[in-house]
C-alpha cells in the first residue's frame, strides 16, 4: 500500500471549518489545541481569496522527527508520523521545525506550564492498544484501525480535503485538474512529500543595480 497522504484543494475549500470541527469532535481535542485549522489568504479580495485546511502533513522526511531531542516520533508502515506522549518532554523544537505549524501544546496546566505536544495523528491513534481507552485519551480515535479514513477528510462537504492512500488521492486530484483544466499546484504537497512541481525550475537571476 502507498503511504497515507492528505491534500487540500484550494480551488474547492470554502472555509467552512467542518474539518476543524470534525477533528475536535472525533478526537476530543482540548481547548487551545487545534490539530487542524483553515488558513485563508487574500482575505476579502474578490476572486483572489483562497482557503486551505492545514494540519500535520505526515511528511516523508519529517523535520519534527529529525529535531526531536528525545526521539519520540516514529512512522507507521502506512507513512503516518506519530509520537509517543510518554516520551515527549514538551520542549517545542518540533513546532519550530515544522513548516506547517502542526505541533500544538496545551497550556492549561498550573503556572502556564506547556504540556506535551499534540498533533494530527491521521486518526491513527498512538502507541497504545488499538481502540483502547488509553489510546483515545492520549491521542484520540484510531479510525484507521476501524477501517475508516480521517474524520476531517471524510466530513469535507466539497471534498476539498482528501485523505487516504497517496496513489488514489493523487489520481483523484489529477482527474479534477484534467476536468477543470487548471489548479495542478497543490499547496504543501512538494514541501511535505518532496515532489517539487517543477524540479527543473531555477531561481531568477539577481538584478544588478
Amino acid at each position: 500500500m502507498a503511504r497515507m497522504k492528505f491534500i487540500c484543494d484550494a480551488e474547492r475549500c470554502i472555509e467552512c471549518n467542518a474539518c476543524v470541527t470534525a477533528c475536535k469532535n472525533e478526537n476530543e481535542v482540548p481547548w487551545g489545541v487545534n490539530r487542524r485549522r483553515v488558513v485563508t489568504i487574500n482575505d476579502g479580495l474578490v476572486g483572489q481569496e483562497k482557503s486551505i485546511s492545514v494540519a500535520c502533513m505526515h511528511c516523508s522526511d519529517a523535520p519534527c522527527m529529525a529535531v526531536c531531542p528525545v526521539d519520540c516520533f516514529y512512522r507507521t508502515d502506512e507513512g503516518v508520523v506519530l509520537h509517543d506522549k510518554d516520551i515527549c518532554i514538551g520542549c517545542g523544537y518540533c513546532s519550530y521545525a515544522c513548516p506547517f505549524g502542526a505541533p500544538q501544546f496545551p497550556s492549561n496546566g498550573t503556572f502556564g506550564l506547556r504540556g506535551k505536544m499534540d498533533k494530527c495523528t491521521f486518526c491513527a491513534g498512538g502507541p497504545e492498544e488499538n481502540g483502547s481507552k488509553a489510546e483515545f485519551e492520549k491521542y484520540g480515535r484510531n479510525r484507521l484501525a476501524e477501517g475508516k479514513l480521517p474524520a476531517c477528510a471524510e466530513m469535507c462537504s466539497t471534498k476539498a480535503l482528501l485523505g487516504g492512500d497517496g496513489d488514489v488521492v493523487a489520481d483523484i486530484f489529477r482527474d479534477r485538474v484534467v476536468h477543470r483544466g487548471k489548479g495542478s499546484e497543490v499547496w504543501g504537497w512538494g514541501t511535505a512529500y518532496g515532489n517539487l512541481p517543477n524540479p527543473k525550475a531555477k531561481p531568477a537571476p539577481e538584478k544588478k543595480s
Partner: protein
Amino acid sequence: MMRALLIPALMLALYGCGEKSQSQADARDSGDQQAYQGAHDPFVTKGWTAGNKAEWERHMRARTQAQNEYVHINGS
C-alpha cells in the same frame, strides 16, 4: 502489623522514585499495533477481517476512492 504496612509503603516509595528507560533505541520501537490488526471498539467497519492486511488495504483503497465524486456522480 507494622511490617505489613511498612513493606507496601516502601514498595510505593521505590516505585515513585523509578524512571522509565529513555534510550533512543526504545523510542524507535514504539510498540504500536498495526492498523490492520483492527480496533477493540464497537466502531469497526464491515467488509474486512481484523488481522488480514490485504483485506484492510483493499478496504481502505476503496474508501479513499469513494472521495472521488467524478466516479459516482458524473459517471466519467
